[in-house]
């Protein structure tokens, strides 16, 4: 084993490797499977009744997590079994996503990334523009792997995507276990860290989606692990595997590749502080900078505007917040749907628990930093970012980016909590063990993990986002229903491909993915969202014709159901749309159907909810 990640002080292992097989192992295997079955049943119930019963959703999810966590922490299970159970739990949690949506990708980010995959399969080349989110076309790593699996195995693109997600979940889980094991010398610590990682708000939901970050994050962990794999010393070729993984990360996701470079350099600087060099780390860090810089340069046309927009939005929100201007309703979506009180309580308790663990652990790290390896110092530094995750929720714009950071932060958090829980020495050197540490009984940690797991799931988004149910307005997965899919498939079959199309957020995504239309977006087409969204959302008909002409619009897709409620995600189309941030009521039905009266506009499709207009014959008259 390489010493690159190894700490001087080893933690206590519960059992020698491969020793025991707990009598509870069999029942837990079945309980976890029952949890997945329960989720499948809930999916059916939600489709039949219109909503996913939240308590049962958490209960069945808990049926997977809680027995697994208890078994992982059990002293009656051998180390090898512990690792396999950690992996089994992680895969079962991922499987819950696919039993809820077994036949298609339904989330907005999934549709965006699926568009890239379909472009690769139809054009046979990478980097075909994707108007839904232009940067995804330049970071096609996950879709390339999916396309390869599809071509080699004959599995459908959707099933190939699921297979890749399972593969990267294996990579993510085992990489965390192995990295922490190598730092601490303890397999239980590695498994506990992976179980703690599963409590992060992105784990069950966002990082299980067919989205470019879902592959990049595990590959970034894998790159760190690869550095620690033993190989013949002194050969420059030994950095090739690490560099190959960094290239795969660079080709998959911009911010993850940037974070990986930062981690490698911070790690290298930490080795300078600890004076314990890690073989191949500096060359790999240098090569990583070159790879990521080169890829970013190639993608600069799309990535610079995209990152700039995110940075600007976040910065202005923070300034607004600092000056007392920002407001954000906690535990409530933009349409007013609120989480139940018990969910709020559990999520707040989970944040409190994590902070209570984090603060003394960081103090310990500061006091004992000379005993820590460079890798341990890096993980402590990463864990220290944690307060930014709940703090980001003070405003809706910053919530998204702070939640994404949780994918990195919880690796550090997993490490420090595992190190704290399994360390034999007193937690604080100036204090007696009994006063500053909890009794290390498994039920204590399992209870804490359960609270953090449920709290993390609550924090990851509004309740409707977890699964199917009745149609909701502008609510990603809950807006993708039979009617919107029917319209999208029809567009793909009967409309001229790549027609310039405008629609709301969900029907626009579906028109692009299944309808093969060129959907207009501000990022890809530099249109002014505020003006163009008038076509759908403003009752004023006067500028419509000239506006449609000015952007050479061919098809307009209007979903009358938008008039039934405010948008659950806060927007019908995109940021900056008509009445953005000031809307108090939905658009009227007549606003959405106003093109029925436009001269020479053709209504080619009507399924009761969605109407597709062809505007090519509409005369271009200047606005008055």
């Amino acid at each position, binding site marked *: 084993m390489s010493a690159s990640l190894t700490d001087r002080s080893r933690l206590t292992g519960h059992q020698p490797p491969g020793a025991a097989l707990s009598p509870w192992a069999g029942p837990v295997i079945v309980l976890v499977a029952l949890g997945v079955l329960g989720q499948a049943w809930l999916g*059916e119930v939600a489709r039949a009744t219109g909503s996913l019963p939240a308590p049962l959703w958490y209960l069945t999810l808990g049926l997977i997590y809680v027995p697994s966590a208890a078994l992982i922490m059990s002293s009656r299970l051998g180390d090898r079994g512990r690792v396999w159970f950690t992996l089994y739990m992680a895969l079962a949690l991922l499987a819950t996503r696919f039993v809820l949506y077994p036949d298609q990708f339904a989330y907005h980010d999934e549709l965006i990334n699926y568009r890239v995959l379909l472009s690769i399969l139809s054009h046979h080349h990478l980097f075909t523009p994707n108007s839904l989110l232009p940067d995804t076309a330049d970071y096609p790593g996950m879709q390339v792997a999916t396309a390869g699996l599809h071509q080699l195995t004959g599995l459908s693109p959707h099933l190939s995507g699921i297979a890749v997600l399972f593969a990267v979940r294996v990579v993510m889980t085992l990489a965390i276990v192995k990295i922490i094991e190598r730092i601490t010398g303890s397999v239980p610590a590695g498994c506990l860290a992976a179980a703690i990682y599963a409590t992060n708000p992105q784990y069950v939901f966002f990082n299980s989606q067919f989205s470019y970050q879902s592959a990049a994050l595990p590959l970034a962990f894998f790159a760190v692990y690869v550095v620690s794999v033993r190989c013949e010393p002194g050969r420059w070729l030994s950095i090739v595997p690490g560099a190959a*993984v960094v290239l795969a990360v660079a080709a998959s996701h911009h911010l993850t590749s940037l974070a990986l470079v930062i981690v490698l350099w911070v790690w290298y600087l930490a080795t300078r502080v600890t004076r314990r060099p890690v073989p191949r780390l500096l060359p790999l860090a240098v090569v990583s900078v070159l790879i990521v810089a080169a890829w970013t340069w190639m993608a600069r046309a799309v990535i610079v505007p995209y990152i700039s927009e995110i940075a600007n939005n976040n910065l202005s929100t923070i300034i607004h917040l600092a000056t007392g201007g920002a407001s954000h309703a906690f535990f409530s979506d933009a349409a007013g749907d609120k989480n139940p009180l018990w969910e709020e309580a559990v999520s707040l308790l989970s944040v409190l628990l994590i902070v209570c663990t984090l603060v003394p652990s960081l103090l310990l790290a500061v006091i004992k930093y000379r005993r820590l390896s460079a890798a341990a110092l890096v993980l402590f530094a990463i864990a220290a970012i944690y307060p930014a995750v709940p703090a980001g929720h003070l405003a809706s714009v910053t919530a998204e980016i702070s939640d994404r950071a949780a994918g990195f932060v919880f690796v550090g958090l997993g490490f420090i909590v595992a190190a704290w829980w399994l360390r034999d020495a007193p937690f604080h050197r100036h204090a007696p063990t009994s006063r500053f540490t909890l009794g290390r009984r498994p039920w204590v940690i399992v209870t804490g993990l359960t609270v953090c797991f449920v709290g993390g799931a609550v924090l990851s988004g509004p309740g409707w986002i977890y699964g199917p149910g009745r149609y909701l307005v502008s609510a990603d997965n809950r807006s993708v229903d039979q009617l919107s899919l029917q319209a999208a498939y029809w567009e793909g079959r009967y409309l001229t491909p790549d027609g310039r199309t405008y629609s709301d957020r969900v029907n626009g995504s579906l028109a692009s993915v299944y309808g093969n239309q060129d959907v207009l977006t501000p990022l890809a087409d530099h249109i002014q969202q505020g003006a163009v969204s008038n076509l759908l959302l403003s009752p004023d008909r006067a500028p419509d014709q000239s506006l449609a002409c000015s952007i050479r619009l061919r098809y307009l897709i209007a979903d009358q159901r938008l008039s039934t409620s405010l948008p659950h995600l806060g927007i019908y189309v995109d940021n900056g749309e008509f009445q953005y941030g000031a809307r108090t009521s939905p658009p009227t039905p007549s606003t959405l159907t106003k093109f029925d009266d436009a001269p020479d506009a*053709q209504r080619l499709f009507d399924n009761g909810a969605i109407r597709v207009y062809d505007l090519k014959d509409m005369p271009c008259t200047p606005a008055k």
Partner: protein
Amino acid sequence: MHPGEVITRLALTAAVLAVIAVSPVVWVAAPVALVAIAATAELAVRPYADDPAGRLLLACGAVVTGLILAGLALNLLPEGLTRLTWALAWLAISVAVLIWRRHSATDLSWLRNLGRSGRALALGAWMVAAVVILAGAVVLAQAGVRNWDRRPDLAFSVVSRTPRAVVVQIQATSTTRRYQIVATRQGQAAGHYTSPFFTVAAGGSGIQLDKQVPLGASGQWIIDLQADGTTVRKLQVVMGRAQ
């Protein structure tokens, strides 16, 4: 490496090429290809892993990384990422790994110990139960989606046109009703078309009916799908311009 193992591995490599060439049903093609990919990845990373979990980690990471890098390389070819180029990439990688690891024999002695321990057998029984439950979960999930797709719906659309007529399509699911198509020309001199009544009897799997609607005169036409004298769906088309 034992000659028998070399032959087996070459056969697996060839099997992937065969399934790509023949394209059998997915439940034959996918297992063959997945086993071949797993076997090649395991052989490639074997010397670097400390234990089975480490081997699985390295193999999965190598497969995903390898697919991404292979795809980036294939993109440089004029043909790009086609089934043929993926097959050639697979052939090159699998043979290269076989040559690279020619001295690394596979040890399958652990297979002989399987099932000898009573506790392992008991665990095996639990695992079989879990697999059955997981399979049930997949079946249940798919059944839920099928039921969801059987909800009533009715779509009315224009699917093609000639200078003097359009073809409209009625897509229906779980709906049984008598309908009539009525087309009316807007403005100027009126035009009119009324179709005979027809019955749409759509089950859970849905049906699709195409009807030709003659629209002799140019101008804007409204096409109503009516049931019991009430318009349930409406289209509007412009005739007499180049399409």
